[in-house]
């Protein structure tokens, strides 16, 4: 039981690390919490479900569709909203409220468009075989999901650390003022990261029905909270932090389900509260205070 819980928790956690990645990037670069993050995840899920049921498009293809589509949506949202917000009196607080409003809008639109019934993808969508490991078998859909998540996290890492634009992103994360003073195209970088963040959220959403069962338009806020917890557990602006946060969440959840099942819903909330009160800089954070 322990092994199964642990391995499932790891697979689960890798996915959730990926799910939180977009939130992490946007938070890191723009110091804004995208409270509509979970709603974009759910929208990605709907893309996959619609594509499969009405057009018979495999979720693997939907991954690309969701990424590209919501990258464009992100760009479309950035320019009317964010520059105006950045110039306001209290961007951090106001952005929180703005994205909360956006989340309400998205939820309402999803109810109107997709109805209220929970929707799902069949777990057999990647075939019926399973993966045997340490005497246990795990469904193939989980393995595929975890692999895709790992690949995307790695790609994000490579983007951030081995490309010129990625370097600019890290510069903006590190010190926005200094990045501006160095002549980096800060606004354009922010726009791209915002769009990537939303695109990644939707992309993880494609896989989400396979990991969390089913989606409905109200699933968003819960996912945002989990993603926020993961980002805070890991640490800001570090894709590896997302993985660490995701693993902590996934493994704790599965162990809790095994040994104290009726309390398992508390896992993300308790983890969040513990980490913000004990080590707000996150597990990987260095806690440097800038004088």
């Amino acid at each position, binding site marked *: 039981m322990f092994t199964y819980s642990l391995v499932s928790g790891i697979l689960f956690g890798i996915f959730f690390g990926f799910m939180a990645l977009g939130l992490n990037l946007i938070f890191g670069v723009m110091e804004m919490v995208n409270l509509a993050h979970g709603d974009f995840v759910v929208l990605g899920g709907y893309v996959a479900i619609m594509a499969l049921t009405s057009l018979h498009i495999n979720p693997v293809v939907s991954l690309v569709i969701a990424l590209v589509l919501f990258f464009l949506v992100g760009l479309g949202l950035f320019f009317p909203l964010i520059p105006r917000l950045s110039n306001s009196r209290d961007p951090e607080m106001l952005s929180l409220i703005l994205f909360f409003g956006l989340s309400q809008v998205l939820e309402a639109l999803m109810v109107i468009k997709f109805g209220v019934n929970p929707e799902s993808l069949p777990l057999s969508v990647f075939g019926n075989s399973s993966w045997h490991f340490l005497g246990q078998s795990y469904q193939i859909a989980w393995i595929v999901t975890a692999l895709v998540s790992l690949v995307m996290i790695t790609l994000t890492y490579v983007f951030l650390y081995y490309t010129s634009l990625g370097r*600019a992103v890290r*510069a903006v994360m590190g010190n926005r003022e200094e990045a501006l*003073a*160095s*002549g980096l195209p800060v606004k354009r970088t922010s726009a791209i990261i915002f769009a990537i963040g939303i695109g990644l959220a939707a992309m993880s959403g494609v896989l989400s029905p396979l990991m969390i069962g089913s989606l409905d338009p109200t699933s968003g806020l819960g996912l945002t909270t989990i993603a926020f917890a993961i980002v805070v557990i890991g640490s800001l602006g570090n894709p590896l932090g997302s993985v660490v946060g995701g693993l902590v969440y996934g493994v704790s959840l599965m162990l809790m389900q095994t040994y104290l099942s009726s309390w398992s819903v508390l896992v993300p909330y308790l983890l969040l509260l513990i980490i913000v009160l004990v080590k707000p800089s996150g597990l990987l954070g260095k806690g440097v205070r800038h004088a």
Partner: protein
Amino acid sequence: MALLHISSLYVGYNSLNVLTDVNLDVEAGTQVVLLGANGSGKTTLLKSLMGLLPVHAGQIVLDTQDITRLGPSARVRAGLAYLSEIGVIASLSVEDNLNIGGYYLTRTLRRQQIRSLYQQLPILYEKRKNPASSLSGGQRKILAFAKVLMGQPRLILMDEPSAGLAPVMVNEMIQILNTYRSHGPAFLIAEQNVKFLEGAHYVYVLDNGQIRFQGTPQDLDADAHIKAAYFGLT
């Protein structure tokens, strides 16, 4: 025609002017020192030159191009570079900081530049993989200087290069500047440390947002009144 030509510049926060009617020229290849106490408006002037603060009125011309309304990234591409008091991005490695400085160069050129800077400043090569936050104050200044050189600018705006430095490091900084004295980019150096006057071609004194004196360092030396008023040295 001066490389940088500022005419009747007014800059401020909200409706309040911090700089009033500033006129200033920097000739190509020269080192100009902008002398002034804390709060006299030096940083405000440099930031407005860099496009980090909006200009209320006046004109900034670089070479023949009017850059008054351009954003900072466009000014960097036009040949300006700004060495702020912080100067580096602490969370990035030394090499990444250099890369940021050469953001608009081609990949090959950027590598070439980094290589030549490593040769000139071996300390940077030693620490190239370390985050800038691990450097000492002096090393950070050197990195910051190397970072602005990366972009091959025509004019470097320096904001208090002596700030926070031990005297030995200040001297080293001045020596480094001296090696660029007659060739390389032009410098506009905002300072309150008079030691920077040694190698300067020209000096402006800024007080309360206005240019109160301009001339060669020798002219300044001769002007006892200015010295007394601004440096409290009697």
